[in-house]
């Protein structure tokens, strides 16, 4: 993109393709959606196979211990693959920005945990405090289950004391992960517009105005910045 003055506009992954303010906002890019759904499938596989290895009542029904164990171990080793791939190339930009949002909490993220009425007026980030804590916990839990799982499966048999400890941690994390994933699915099913945006990548401005006002103003600021170059031929850039 080059404007009349010959300056090239920096392409922005989070600015909408259409410049009309009524257009939907780009919430998740293709890379993020691929990462999300590939990890979702692997996570559900891990939970199902893990439960079949762990709960006697299920183990007795499912059987095929060797096969289930191999599926669980291979899936577990691959779980973080999509994130690693997504962060390995120039297509990482938006994912990296959203991972930063998960990491960096603003006061409004902490305040989100207040009661429903007291958090009403908060100008929220792209993700709210609840979404952030879930992402932070799941991210840490995925790394920790990988470490403990590798010890359980691949450590030399002389490390049995550590394997016992790793098993304890792995099992405890299993319960935490299941709780987080169930909550995630329940919230997604109760909020169709957000659920659809994980397929389409886009979400309405009206939603953002209510649920992610701080993010909306960021996006709008960057839109003004991007379109301001064009607009400056006739109008001065409006004060922000």
């Amino acid at each position, binding site marked *: 993109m080059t404007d009349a003055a010959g300056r090239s506009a920096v392409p922005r992954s989070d600015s909408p393709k259409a410049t009309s303010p009524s257009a939907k906002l780009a919430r998740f890019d293709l890379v993020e959606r691929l990462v999300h759904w590939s990890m979702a499938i692997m996570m559900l596989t891990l939970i199902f196979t893990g439960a079949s*290895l*762990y*709960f*006697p009542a299920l*183990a*007795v029904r499912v*059987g*095929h*211990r*060797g*096969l289930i*164990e*191999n599926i669980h171990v291979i899936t577990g080793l691959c779980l973080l693959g999509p994130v690693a791939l997504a962060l390995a190339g120039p297509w990482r930009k938006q994912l990296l920005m959203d*991972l930063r949002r*998960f*990491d*960096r*909490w*603003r*006061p409004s*993220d*902490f305040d989100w945990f207040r009661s429903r009425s007291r958090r009403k007026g908060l100008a929220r980030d792209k993700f709210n405090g609840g979404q*952030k*804590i879930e*992402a*932070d*916990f799941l*991210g*840490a*839990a995925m*790394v*920790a289950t990988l*470490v*403990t799982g590798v*010890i*359980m*499966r691949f450590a*030399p*048999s*002389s*490390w*049995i*004391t*550590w*394997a*016992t*400890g*790793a*098993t*304890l*941690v792995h*099992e*405890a*994390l*299993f*319960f935490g992960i299941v709780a987080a994933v169930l909550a995630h699915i329940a919230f997604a099913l109760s909020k169709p517009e957000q659920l659809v945006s994980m397929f389409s990548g886009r979400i309405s401005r009206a939603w953002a105005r209510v649920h992610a006002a701080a993010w909306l103003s960021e996006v709008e600021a960057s839109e003004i910045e991007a379109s301001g170059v064009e607009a400056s031929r006739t109008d001065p850039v409006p004060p922000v």
Partner: protein
Amino acid sequence: MAGKSEQPPGSPDPSAKPPVHVGRRTMLGVLGLTGIGIVAGAKIDNALGSSLSAVSKAVGVPLPGGNQFQFYTITGSFPVIPADTYELTVDGMVREPLRLSLAELRSIKRTRLVHRFQCVTGWYVPDVPWEGVLLSDVLDRAGVMPEATALRFFSADGAYTESLTLSQAHLPDVLVADKMLDANVTSDHGGPVRLYVAPMYGYKSIKWLNRIEVTNKVVPGYWEDNGYPANAWIGGVAQ
């Protein structure tokens, strides 16, 4: 909080407090607890195991550290073998091949020991009562030929196999067990007859044992083909 401000000093924006790196802290916290858990978990397990297993039994859900048996089968089902038709075959390099009914097996001198069942992946059940006959007594009855060096074990499930060297088989805590937990070995636990190799990891204690073949070569069993060691001493060395 050592986060540096991203706003230039004297910024007029009142909300310009530096963000708190909750994600990073969560990661470090979880990984730190994981490290402590790996190193100290076995001790915690020992200390809390009995109370946790009581809670676990009460709620009917296995809890982490609850020291409960997990039930393994490598086929699609748990073979159910009626006690009255059960037979243990001992063949291969023996002077007199045997086919022992459960009653005949039980007529051999009985041994009881209380010992933990330790899985190689880390879980264990402490102080399990085991009862049966010494494997060495069964072998003596069949008469092992002098050139024999190893044993192959077969399971009624048609898939599970195991191995021991002859000297391992002669250890005084290797049982052909028909009782565990002070009852007949259940189908889920590998009954009516299973092996119990006390000094080795649980996978050596083959379930639904129905045939022992005396050979002159260690043939790796099912779990050994899946990457676990044949000499499965608990802790890595013979005790």
